[in-house]
């Protein structure tokens, strides 16, 4: 079974980069303002976005822009699409905010809206809810983007027919730092036409590493 990367996106350094082409540059320096500017620029109407933590916002926007203009959600039932994410910082930013609200026993007011984001899986859940994606849904924590691990894990899901389409990648956000790299992986025999990448990109660890670093294939 041949697997291909049929589209990929990166949000980093104030930029939205789709298939290696810079689509949008924001003037905003802070993470939250950058994410807000991408939201405003993208004509998305989803009021729940504003309540998300920055990690979920980054994941949400990355998937939103990755899928925009594609027929992925029409082509595959939600049960056949997987979301396999990874990052280094887990949900640490929300974890720390939550800790600040509960550390003083005499002023103990945990905030429900912060507490609910104290798991990185919530980000995957927000994406799944938005797009009615019901397939495998996992977030792995690793110090660095691990193309070999991601390749093997996602390939296994395809070989076991757990998914027929997958959205894997890296969504990391902590403090001033943020970086996302997501792609769509599909089986070669299910691709009728490569909309943006005419020849497709073979799904393998080397290509993943190059795309993540912004290098050409």
């Amino acid at each position: 079974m041949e697997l291909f990367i049929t589209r990929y996106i990166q949000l980093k350094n104030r930029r939205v980069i789709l298939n290696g082409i810079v689509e949008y540059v924001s003037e905003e320096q802070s993470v939250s303002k950058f994410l807000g500017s991408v939201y405003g620029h993208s004509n998305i109407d989803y009021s729940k976005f504003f309540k998300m933590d920055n990690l979920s916002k980054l994941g949400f926007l990355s998937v939103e822009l990755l899928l925009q203009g594609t027929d992925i959600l029409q082509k595959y039932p939600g049960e056949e699409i997987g979301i396999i994410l990874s990052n280094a910082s887990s949900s640490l930013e929300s974890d720390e905010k939550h800790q600040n609200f509960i550390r003083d026993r005499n002023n103990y007011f945990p905030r429900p809206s912060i507490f609910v984001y104290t798991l990185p899986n919530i980000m995957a859940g927000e994406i799944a809810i938005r797009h009615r994606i019901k397939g495998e849904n996992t977030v792995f924590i690793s110090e660095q983007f691990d193309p070999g691990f991601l390749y093997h894990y996602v390939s296994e899901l395809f070989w076991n027919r757990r998914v027929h389409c997958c959205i894997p990648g890296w969504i990391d956000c902590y403090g001033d730092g943020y970086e996302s790299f997501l792609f769509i992986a599909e089986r070669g025999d299910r691709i009728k036409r490569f909309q943006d990448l005419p020849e497709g990109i073979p799904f393998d660890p080397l290509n993943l590493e190059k795309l993540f670093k912004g290098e050409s294939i």
Partner: protein
Amino acid sequence: MEDLILKLKKEIIGILNREDITPEDIDAEAPLFGDGLGLDSIDALEFIVLLEETYGIKIEDPKKGRKIFYSVKTMADYIQEHQKN
């Protein structure tokens, strides 16, 4: 009462993290839950925390929340009534 309603609207905007809406955008008598502001059960919990932390009012029975948090006006009425006691 008007001051309290304005204060509550600002606090709700803060809870929702909505920089794109102003207090004028929120109708004090319109239902808070449902389509409008996109509030959910987590926001209801936030309102319970808000009442306790900011106004010193503890809601012992969460079922009462539906009536109390129906609108900004009903919240203001509840606060005013219970702060007097």
